[in-house]
């Protein structure tokens, strides 16, 4: 055994057929799993000219070899597809229990192609797979869908990944939700699922997943567990959840506020992780085999929900000028129920707020209007009223009204919760991210703000391209392994490599893991070039490049990605346009 479930299921919804094939050894060796499997299978199967919402696009859900093998934080699966928001080949990551169940059902990956004639769901049942009728599920929320499938099967143990009404309505940033609250959030993976008339995927089974070297894995697991338990950052994650970042980022004067018009929110304390812990937090919660348990179960006037995590907390809060934590938590719950990305939905609303305040769009909503914000979230999910236009994402919306510069996005995907003007390396990481505006494809906030693994001056550009490249490659490797990225505050490349080697039996050291990551990154890049992406797209909104910050220590600064881009390309072995050189491709076996 090698940590893999051993099979990939191909569901052709147009033909109504499923096919089960062994997981190819070459795929394991070169791409490991998760994001690696997804990007390889996607780019092999889909013509680069394909429209993301066309039946010819495919959707790949893939776990990694460390998913569900008992390694702490080995909980993740990755969804890869062509994004209807950015147009790029992307992946989105989720935790919870679904990834483990998928492997218990016998599958390393699920490849969905075509389009069902009527609503369907896919049932993975202990080595078998079948397409079932979902007519009765269409229109239901993610919670209702999960309950309905569990009831139909009379099995609470079956795990469900599904879309809500937003995915059905092809909202360009609809997400996929598993276990009601865990999201493969970004890039509109839920819209692709909706375009295929696929409402849900459910998995159960009791297949054994065994590592290659049980004794060695046990020893590495012990070492890793100790590091995680002793690491101060991981301890804080458990106590305050990711929202502990609200005060940290705000005190650094890099908290995007009111659609990035400033970088400090005076009322940040009211929506902080500390306030959450003291008010609405009921308990913390973890994904499969997690000892950190950063998830938040919150009680808002009797309504139980999970989250908000830092990103939605910031986006519905400071970015919309809102300091009402309960409203933020409610908005986050609506996103989970309707299946909306809780970063792009609120940041698109923030874009509308600025456009409305400036008189570019006629709408009553203003910054700080919690009630108006809550109504807009539902309207987006249902594509009602102005929600129908906002469902296209902030870039298309702002462009339609003649002000694309007010969309705070990169490659048409909304930027997350950090102002690049005061964090130079992060700016480069998000501008060059192959999936568009992003923070988890290379989390430069760790060294530049949090001091992990070491403190880097956030205002300096020198040396950052190398850091960005290394972080991006390592993250791709971690995403392929099935580990949660939050483990990386305590673990290094050697730890992941040892885990992978003990689990798979393959010869993997830190250098090899980074190489696998680099291969995935370059494959994604290469394919996106075929889809028309280039140097012009590795950029940030003009506001962040030209309008200096006005408050606190980073006053006067803009993002200086121009100083770093050429060096970054050179380090990557790419030409001036960002095209991988033949030598680099040969080195990576692409």
């Amino acid at each position, binding site marked *: 055994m090698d940590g893999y479930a051993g099979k990939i299921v191909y569901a052709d919804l147009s033909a109504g057929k499923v096919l089960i094939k062994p997981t190819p050894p070459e795929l394991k060796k070169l791409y490991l799993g998760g994001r690696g499997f997804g990007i390889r299978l996607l780019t092999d199967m889909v013509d680069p000219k394909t429209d993301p919402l066309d039946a010819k696009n495919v959707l790949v859900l893939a776990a990694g070899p460390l998913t569900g093998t008992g390694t702490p934080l080995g909980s993740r699966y990755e969804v890869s597809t062509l994004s209807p928001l950015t147009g790029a080949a992307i992946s989105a990551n989720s935790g919870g229990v679904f990834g483990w169940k998928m492997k218990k059902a016998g599958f390393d990956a699920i490849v969905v192609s075509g389009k069902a004639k009527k609503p369907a769901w896919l049932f993975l049942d202990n080595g078998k797979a079948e397409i079932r009728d979902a007519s009765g599920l269409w229109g239901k929320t993610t919670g209702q869908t999960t309950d309905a499938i569990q009831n139909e099967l009379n099995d609470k143990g079956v795990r469900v990944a599904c879309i809500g009404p937003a995915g059905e309505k092809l909202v360009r940033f609809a997400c996929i939700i598993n276990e009601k609250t865990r999201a493969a959030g970004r890039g509109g993976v839920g819209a692709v699922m909706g375009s295929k008339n696929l409402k849900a995927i459910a998995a159960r089974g009791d297949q054994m997943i065994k590592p290659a070297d049980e004794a060695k894995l046990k020893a590495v697991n012990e070492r890793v567990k100790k590091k995680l338990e002793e690491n101060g*950052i991981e301890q804080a994650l458990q106590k305050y959840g*990711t929202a502990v970042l609200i005060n940290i980022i705000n005190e650094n004067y890099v908290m995007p506020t009111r659609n990035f018009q400033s970088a400090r929110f005076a009322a940040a304390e009211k929506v902080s992780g500390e306030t959450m812990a003291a008010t609405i937090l009921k308990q913390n919660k973890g994904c499969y085999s997690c000892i950190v348990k950063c998830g938040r179960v919150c009680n808002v006037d009797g309504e139980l929900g999970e989250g908000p995590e830092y990103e939605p907390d910031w986006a519905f809060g400071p970015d919309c000028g809102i300091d009402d934590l309960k409203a933020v938590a409610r908005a986050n719950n609506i996103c989970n129920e309707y299946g909306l990305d809780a970063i792009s939905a609120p940041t698109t609303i923030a874009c509308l707020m600025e456009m409305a305040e400036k008189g570019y769009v006629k709408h009553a909503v203003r910054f700080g209007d919690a009630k108006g914000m809550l109504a807009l979230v539902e309207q987006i999910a249902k594509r009602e009223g102005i929600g129908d236009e906002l469902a296209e994402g902030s870039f298309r919306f702002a462009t339609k009204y003649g002000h694309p510069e007010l969309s705070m996005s990169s490659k048409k995907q909304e930027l997350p919760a950090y102002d690049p003007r005061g964090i130079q390396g992060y700016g480069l990481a998000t501008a060059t991210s192959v999936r568009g505006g992003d923070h*988890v494809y290379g989390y430069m906030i760790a060294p530049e703000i949090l001091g992990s693994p070491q403190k880097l*001056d956030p205002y300096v550009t020198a040396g950052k391209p190398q850091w960005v490249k290394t972080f991006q490659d390592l993250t791709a490797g971690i995403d392929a392994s099935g580990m949660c990225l939050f483990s990386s505050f305590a673990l290094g490349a050697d730890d992941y490599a040892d885990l992978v080697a003990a689990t798979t039996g393959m010869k993997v050291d830190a250098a090899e893991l980074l190489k696998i990551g680099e291969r995935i990154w370059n494959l994604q890049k290469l394919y996106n070039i075929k889809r028309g992406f280039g140097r012009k797209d590795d950029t940030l909104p003009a506001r962040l490049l030209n309008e200096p910050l006005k408050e606190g*220590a980073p006053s006067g600064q803009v993002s200086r990605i121009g100083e770093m881009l050429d060096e970054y390309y050179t380090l990557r072995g790419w030409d001036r346009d960002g095209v991988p050189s033949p030598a680099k491709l040969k080195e990576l076996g692409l």
Partner: protein
Amino acid sequence: MTGAKDHVTVTVRAFATLREVMDRELRCEYPSGVTVGTLLRDLVQKYNGLGALLFSDPETLRDYVNILVNGRNMEFLAGLSTPLADGDTIALFPPAAGG
């Protein structure tokens, strides 16, 4: 009373677990020339349990502890020797992260 010129008044803000052992915000007055190091040693004297949260030994901060002076990490100023000026705000963070 000493003349205002001889003294500086600074605001200290504490976050996350630090709030379990100290006030979340306080104003402190010091003779001018005070450094971040003096301020921290003073706070450690004042608040039981703070020392263990901030320092691994008397001169070394614990890994991932971040001290900001007006939003700038003191690491990129003069570290514990960073001088404080009247009106400065010092933010104290224990190890913490998110994403």
